[in-house]
Structures are given as structure tokens and as C-alpha cells.
């Protein structure tokens, strides 16, 4: 039994490891209860497990056009818990005129990148506004995470090489693209099926897979368990749970969150 495997079974704090989370939410959800959902409470749970920081974004804009409200929730969270949460601006391209001003407004507020969830919002995955949004991420050298990238992803990877594209969810089917484009990263959220993580890692570049918890939608152990307990080399696990995201932050010039005090 390897050290990370054992630490997971023992429920130990992952002290000495670097954990960075590329997919997290803050706010209330329409569909279910989220206990302890305040930013300070979420940060406390991150501290307990030694998760240094996370890309965070809203729930509100998933089901409505009120993305500014949700982005303000994120901005407020980043102020209340400094240097743990790195905000990604959510936009809803169905409300076309709002998109670019909201990206600019949130950049001014210190947001680190862009979050899209167009498949839920009802916007086509090859819609024309993607050009402008990906162009914005390219211009500012930021990450851009989409819940589900559509068929034009390769075209955008080529045209916008300074944008760092992140798949919102576990998508080993992108392995071929990941091999050819350094600006494509795969989020682990969520290897639900039997040995899904191991099977995906057979094809994926180990330096382009990043752990995403989906906190505060999902519990941390739900996403960490399949990685820490996997039949996969420990050094690959370490890359996935934090080292790869550290490289992404450095690529984008985003300051990495500090280690927690012991």
C-alpha cells in the first residue's frame, strides 16, 4: 500500500503534499441543500485537508441570466478569504450584450479566468460568441474552463494558443488533443465508474490532468478517493492533485496560494 493510498484510508490530512483544485463552486444551489456553504467554512474544510487553493465560480448563472449576481458572490468570497479562492468569471452567451462587459468588469475585480457552462444554458457549443470569449482568454493569458467543450475545440486551441483550455469534467476522450496541444488540460471531476481514473490515465498525458473537486457541489473525498486509491504511480497522483495546476498558474502568471500554516 503506497503512502497516498494509506493516508486516504486513514483519513489523514495530506500534509507535505501540494493540493490545488481546478473546479469549485461557491453559493446556494437550486436543486439541493449545501451545508456549511459560506466561504470561510469552505476554506476551513480546505485547510483541514490541506487544499491550498481553488478556481471558484458560481451556481446562479447555470440556470439563469443573472451571472453578475453570481460573479459578485465570487468576488465577495475572494475578498472574505484572501488568496485561497481564484475566481473564474461566468458568462451566459444567450445574453449576448452582457458577455464582454461582464468579462471586463470581473477582470477589473481580480478574477483569474473564465468559466463557461453553455450546454446547461442552452447556447450552442459552436456558437459565434465563443470566438470573442476565447479571444479574451487568449489576450489576457488566462484559463478558460467549459463544462463541456464542443466540436470546435481543436480549432480554438490552434487559434488561441495563449488561452489555457480546461475541460470542466473528466473527459479522457480528449487524450489525442491533449497530446498535440500544450494549452489543453483535463479536469478529473468526476471518475464515477469502476477504475475510470485508471482507464483514462492509460491515454492521457500525466502532466495535463488536474484534480477538480466540484466543491461545494460535491464532497472533497468523492473526487480525491478515486485518485488517491487508484492503481496509478504515486508521482502521477502528485502531479494530478496539485503539481500540474501549479504549472498552469505559473503559465498564466497567477500567484499560487500559499501553504497553510502547520
Amino acid at each position, binding site marked *: *500500500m503506497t503512502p497516498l493510498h*494509506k493516508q*486516504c*484510508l*486513514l*483519513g*489523514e*490530512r495530506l500534509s507535505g503534499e501540494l493540493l490545488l483544485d481546478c473546479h469549485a463552486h461557491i453559493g446556494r444551489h437550486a*436543486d*439541493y*441543500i*449545501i*451545508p*456549511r*456553504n459560506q466561504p470561510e467554512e469552505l476554506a*476551513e*474544510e480546505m485547510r*483541514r*485537508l490541506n487544499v491550498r487553493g481553488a478556481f471558484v465560480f458560481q451556481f446562479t448563472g447555470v440556470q439563469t441570466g443573472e451571472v453578475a449576481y453570481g460573479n459578485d458572490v465570487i468576488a465577495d468570497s475572494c475578498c472574505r478569504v484572501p488568496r485561497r479562492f481564484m475566481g473564474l468569471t461566468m458568462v451566459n452567451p444567450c445574453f449576448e450584450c452582457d458577455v464582454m462587459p461582464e468579462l471586463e468588469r470581473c477582470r477589473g475585480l481580480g478574477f483569474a479566468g473564465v468559466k463557461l457552462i453553455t450546454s446547461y444554458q442552452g447556447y450552442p457549443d459552436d456558437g459565434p460568441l465563443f470566438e470573442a470569449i476565447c479571444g479574451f482568454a487568449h489576450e489576457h493569458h488566462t484559463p478558460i474552463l467549459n463544462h463541456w467543450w464542443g466540436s470546435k475545440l481543436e480549432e480554438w486551441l490552434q487559434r488561441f494558443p495563449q488561452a489555457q483550455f480546461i475541460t470542466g469534467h473528466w473527459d479522457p476522450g480528449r487524450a489525442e488533443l491533449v497530446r498535440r496541444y500544450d494549452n489543453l488540460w483535463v479536469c478529473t471531476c*468526476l*471518475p*464515477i*465508474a*469502476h*477504475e*475510470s*481514473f485508471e*482507464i483514462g490515465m492509460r491515454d492521457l498525458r500525466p502532466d495535463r490532468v488536474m484534480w477538480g473537486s466540484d*466543491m*461545494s*457541489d*460535491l*464532497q*472533497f*473525498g*468523492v*473526487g*480525491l*478517493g*478515486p*485518485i*488517491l*486509491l*487508484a*492503481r496509478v504511480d504515486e508521482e502521477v497522483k502528485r502531479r494530478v492533485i496539485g503539481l500540474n495546476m501549479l504549472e498552469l498558474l505559473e503559465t498564466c502568471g497567477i500567484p499560487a496560494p500559499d501553504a497553510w500554516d502547520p
Partner: protein
Amino acid sequence: MDVDSFAALPDIVDAYCSLGRWKRPVAADFYGHDTTSLIDEMDQKGIAQAIVHHSLSRLSHPIDGNEQAMKGIEGEPRLHACWSILSKASREYPVFEEYIEDAFQRGVRCFAVFPRFGAYPSGHDTSVREFVRAGTFVVFEERRFPVFIDFGGDPTGGTDDTDWEALRYLLEAHPDLPVILCEHRLRGGSRLLPGVMDDHPNLHIETSGLWNYMALEQIAWQWGADRLIFGTRSPWRSVGLALGMVTMACLSPEERGLILAGNIRRLMEAVQ
């Protein structure tokens, strides 16, 4: 909130997993658990014992599936069978109570029902209200057999499958029956569960569907860790997902120990 870790590797019993091939393969190179693959997975993940039902008992016929489960656990002391049942009134058991006694004599200490009316072609159609009306659960309540109940129409997927009103009907009729609710994924049900948990102390929740943030912890905090039973739903669910959810939970080692093994052992040992 700081919580302590286990001092040593915890005792773990997977209370909800299965043997056999289902309607489709689990993966291209993995068709479903046989005894060897299940034991291998348990060894790798640190699981001491497992309670298994057979795919036939859910997708075909419980009487056939239960016998296949017995064959699957034969000579393997780490595995325990969970038998599935139909309504007592279905006329498929010559003497229902004798069938249950036979199970007990053969070491069975828990049962499962899959009461999903409209499940066809994913499983047999039944109704929990009909189970209750027919007196099916009387013998289980008298003898304190734990009963798993899983309303999922598609046993390999789904969200919020539970028929909460039917569940209430069962719990109200049998307040001393240890009922263990299984969900593939609990989402909207998180707003219905609290009232049923308040009203029915005999309701327990199998953990594999509690993915949501602090859903597991919330149940332990509000109603006690003794209401939670660890299960993986293997081979359809990553065992790592189900296990990490409990071992890394924001709960004390004592609470996590109850969930991982203590509660199901207590329930099975109480069977008369």
C-alpha cells in the same frame, strides 16, 4: 473543524456490491464482478468483507439470483450473501417464511428489494406498497433482518429515484424494521430526506449515493452516524469514490468506523 485520523487502518465492510453480468458490460475489458475480481478489488482497496447480491436477483429473478449469490460466496468467508425478494403475495414462494428461514440457516443476514414499478426492461416490476400490503416485511421486522431498498429503475445510473411516499408507507407500517435506503445519486432528495429521517429512526442510508458536499456529514451530525451504512455499488461505481467519501469525511474516527463497518455488523448480529 479539525478531526483526527484513524490510528490504524480501519475495518471496512462493503454492504452494497454485486456479482454477475448486468445488462451491459461495465467496461470493454471488464464485464462485471466474479468472486476473483471482487476479492482482488477488496484487497487493493483495503476492504475486509463484503455483502453481495447477484445481478440476476435484480434484473432477472430473485430466486435464481439468490442461488447464484450463494455459489459466488462459496468457500470465501469474506463474502456474505444478500438475498433479494418479491412480494409474499406473488405466489412464487410455497411458504414464504420457510424460504426466509432457509436463507437464515444458510447464513444470510440481510435482504434487498428493488421495488421499481415501471422498471422493465431494466428489471422486474414491483411495488413497495404491494410488498407492504401483502405482509412481506412482517417476518423481517420480527426477526430484525436489515432490508436494503433501492428504487432505481436503471441500477447502473440515475438520480433521485426514491419514491419517498412509498418509503414512508413502509416505515410507518414497520417501525422496527431496519431499512437501508440506497440511491445512485441523492440530489433533490436531500430536501425530502430530513423529514423522513426525523420521523423514522429505523431508516438508514447506504452511502454510495451521497456525493454532495457534506451530505454524508450532515446526516451524521443531524441524526447520528449510526444511521449510515457504507456501500460501494461496485462494479458500477468507483470504489475509490465511495471509500474516499467516508474515510476523508469531516467526522471523528469513531463515527467513520461506525459507518465503514460497525453499523452493518451490529444490524446483522441482531438478526434472530
